[in-house]
Structures are given as C-alpha cells and as structure tokens.
C-alpha cells in the first residue's frame, strides 16, 4: 500500500506511462524516480501490467451462440456440421448433366486415329466408360472392370490413399489442438478454405463411386487428397510463424 508521500508521485505515473505529460513535469518526475526505488517499482509494475493487458486475447464462448442468433434474425436453422460420411449412390449410373456426344464404345480401342473434328466443333465428353461394378456398403471396397476387361485395383471409396491417411489424421488432430492458439479470424479463414477442398474431395469420391474404373478420377481424387495434405501442413505451421 502506498503511503501519502509517495502518492503525489505515483498518482502521476499513469499519465507518464501513457505519454500525456508536459516536459517540465516529466523532468521533475524523472528526477524523483532516479532517487526513489519504491516509485520505480510501481512504475515497473504498471508498465508490465499495461503490456500484459495489451496482449489479452480473444475468448470464444464455451458454446456456439449462432443458433440463438440465427433464430432471432430469421436465418434458416443451421444444419448440423457435415460429417465425412459419404452416401454411396445406387448402382444405377447417374447421367451426365451434359449430354454424351461421342459414342464411347466406338472409341474404346486404343492408339488409333479416331476422328478428325473440324474447327470450332464441340466435343462433349462425359462419364462414358461402361463398367460393371458392385457398389459396396459405406466404407466398403469396390472392384471394377471396364469393357476392355482390364481389372482396376480395389478402391477404398471411404478414405484417402493409404500412404497419406496417417499424416492427414495426425495433421487434423494437430490443428484441432492448436485452434485455441490461433486468432479467430485465422481459424475462420482456414476452415472456409478447408471446406472448398473437402467439397472437391466429396464430389470426386461421388464421381468415382459412379465410375470406379475411371483412371482420371482416381488420379484427380488422389491429387485432391494431396492438396488437403499440403493445406493442413501449411495450416499447422501458421500457428508457429504468425506467433
């Protein structure tokens, strides 16, 4: 506790700390501080306190408040957060939104000059490989053959390529743990962009479920998983270099 004689000096310390001091007053105060350890201690404590206060961070609420806000502003009821469970389509092949123009069986033969299409022509290419496939249960594997008889390796339609799966899992866990260290705006940005990648993965998986034998789709899905891996690696590092 401060006794009366120091109070006349310590009462000025906040103003001094905040830079709102006229020079003449500052000289007098600094002259006193040079001689008085007690007042110097107070100044030191105040400065440390102010710096700590500057660095106090955001505190997210313990529960998600959005549903209550949404109800009050007339927003549609928020859907539950999507889980990564893919509903496999039925065995019936979905039709391409764009029509199929080139007749696929006619083109199935390899390494032959197939057609010359004149300038400004439009070629529509859609899901066209005729396959026989057995679509498994959720998380099951599917083997498929093309008309040409090649057998494609079984595709685990529920998950990423095995060589990426472990690191993806680890990174997802790391990010969940580091979330609290990140600025809320950073978290918002990271989640939004992760959503873009997840949607692309989802669409690719659905397409692959329609055409399990499609080499392009296999490569595309693998590439999109790698994109997710790169992204999670980058996100996991952000907490470190943004400090």
């Amino acid at each position, binding site marked *: 506790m401060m006794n009366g004689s120091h109070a006349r000096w310590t009462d000025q310390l906040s103003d001094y700390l905040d830079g709102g001091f006229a020079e003449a007053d500052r000289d007098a105060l600094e002259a006193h501080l040079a001689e008085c350890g007690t007042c110097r201690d107070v100044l030191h404590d105040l400065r440390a306190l102010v710096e700590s206060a*500057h*660095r106090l961070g955001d505190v997210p609420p313990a529960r998600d408040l959005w549903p209550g806000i949404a109800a009050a502003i007339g927003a549609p009821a928020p859907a539950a957060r999507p889980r990564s469970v893919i509903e496999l389509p039925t065995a019936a092949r979905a039709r*391409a939104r*764009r029509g199929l123009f080139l007749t*696929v069986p006619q*083109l*199935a*033969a*390899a*390494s032959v*000059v*197939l*057609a*010359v*299409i*004149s*300038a*400004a*022509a*439009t*070629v*529509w*290419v*859609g*899901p*066209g*490989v005729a396959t026989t496939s057995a679509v498994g249960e959720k998380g099951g594997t599917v083997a498929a053959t*093309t008309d*040409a008889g090649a057998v494609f390796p079984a595709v685990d339609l529920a998950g990423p390529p095995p060589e990426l799966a472990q690191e993806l899992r680890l990174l997802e866990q790391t990010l969940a743990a580091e979330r609290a260290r990140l*600025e809320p*705006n*950073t978290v918002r*940005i*990271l989640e*939004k*962009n992760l959503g*873009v*990648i997840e*949607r*692309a993965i989802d*669409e*690719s998986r659905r*397409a692959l479920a329609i*055409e399990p*034998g*499609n*080499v*392009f789709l296999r*490569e*595309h899905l693998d*590439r*999109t998983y790698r*994109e997710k891996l790169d*992204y999670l690696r*980058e*996100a996991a590092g*952000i907490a470190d*270099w*943004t*400090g």
Partner: protein
Amino acid sequence: MGTLLMAGWLLAGAAVPAASVADTTVELRRGDRVVVERFTGELSVESWSRSSLSVAGDADDVRGVAVTRSGSEVTVRPDDRKARTNDVELVVRVPAWVRLEVSGRELDVSVAGVEGGVAVRNVSGDVRMDRVAGEIAISTVEGEIGVYGARGPVTAHSRGDDVTLSDVTGDVDVGTGDGDLRLENVTASNLRAETLDGDVYFNGALAPSGTYWISVHDGDATLILPGDTDAHVSVSTFDGELTSDFPVTLRRYQGGGVFDFTLGEGSAQLEVKVFDGEIRFRRREGR
C-alpha cells in the same frame, strides 16, 4: 503534428509530410537480405537509388518500428516495448538489389522494383508486385495476388482468392483453392496452374519443348494460343466440354474422358485436367 491531422493526411491520400518520415535509416550492403515481419495493416516496399533502407509513415506507426541488423540480414519489425497491436501503414524503401522477405498475419503488401528476389507470406491480405525480378514466392491463405512484370521463377499460391500474372518471364507455379488464375503474356518453359473452384485463363505462348500442366476441379480452362503453336495436348475430364478453334485429331482415347491430340508439330507438352467445366482452345490472331 497531432494524430487527427495526420490521419487526415493519410485519408486524403496525400504524400506523408516530411515531418513524419522517420529517421530510421540503415545503410545496406550488397548481398543484404531485408526481412519485414509481424506487422498488421498495409506495407509498401519500393526501391530507390540510395543504398540504405528507410521506413516512413505516420509518426505513431514509425515510432513503433524496430530495425536491427544481424550479419547480412536487416530486420524490420514492431518494437514490442512501444507498439500496440494496431494496424500500421508503412512505406519501406530499399535498393533494388536486395532480397526481400515479408511475413505477417493480416497484411496487405505491395512491392515495386525489387530485383534480388522477393518472398511474401501472410494469412490474409492482398499481395501485389510490380517490376520485380529474382526468385518470386508468394503465399497467402486469403488474399488476391497480382504480379505485373516479373523476371524470374514465380511461385504464387492463394487458398481463397484470385491469382493474376501479367508480363512474366520465367517458370511459373500458381495455384488457388477458391479463385481464378489469370495468366497473360506469360513466357515460361515450365508452368503449373491449379485451382479447385475457379477458372484458369491463359493467354500466351508455349515454348518449344516446354511442359505445361493445368488442373481445375470445378471451373473452366481457357487457353488462347498463337496459330502456329506446336504442342502435344492431353485432356482429361469427368464432366467436361471441349471447344477448339484448332482442328482436333484424337490420337488416343482412354475412356472416361481422357484423350490426346496434337497441335502443329507437337513439341511442347500440355496437360489440361478439368473435373467439371469447359475446356476452350482459342486461336490468337496475329502473334
């Protein structure tokens, strides 16, 4: 000068008055690297003819800046003892020959005239470069990237915004998650362009024996090429539509939307992969 008056100057877009330019100048030597880190707000880096570094801006902002040298690395960062976590607007001037590295969290960055290589990394904020050279590397999670006039390999990746390269000579590696890629007058022997949700627009030329790889998940790929282009083109798509000004002779059809064709003598290698979107080859008039 009071802070309110200073703010007025900045809002009016006037040049910062001389009274507010900091005395923070540091002599630089050839081979020095300049690192600017941990600021939030707006940062401009410009080259000038002196061989020193200077930091200018609002008096309060500049007061909160610390410049230190360690060997050949000169670092510009907030002074923890003085700086609040407020947005700053700073102009840093450096000689053209330095190598520049910038990092920050929410930071808009513009760089002009730096020729020793530039690396910029932030979480959000737009990044713009003009007339730069050396190895150029830009990484942002949410922010637009624009590179106008560059000599040197350019790597530019955003996650959630557009990337534009214009008048660039050198190998190119660009990508974004949710945004468009625009490549105009890009002369590269090796090019990689990848976006998930967005379009790729390429208007340039393919070097003989160059390799070009474009991937789009949900969006269009448009390539505008000279009439005498020599390239072997491989197109892969799941649900796509190909339109071409060039005659397309299919050489190989793997099924499922993968096919090859050749333009001219076929010396460059071009791969275009679009999961769901249009692929357009247009012939550019003239050269």
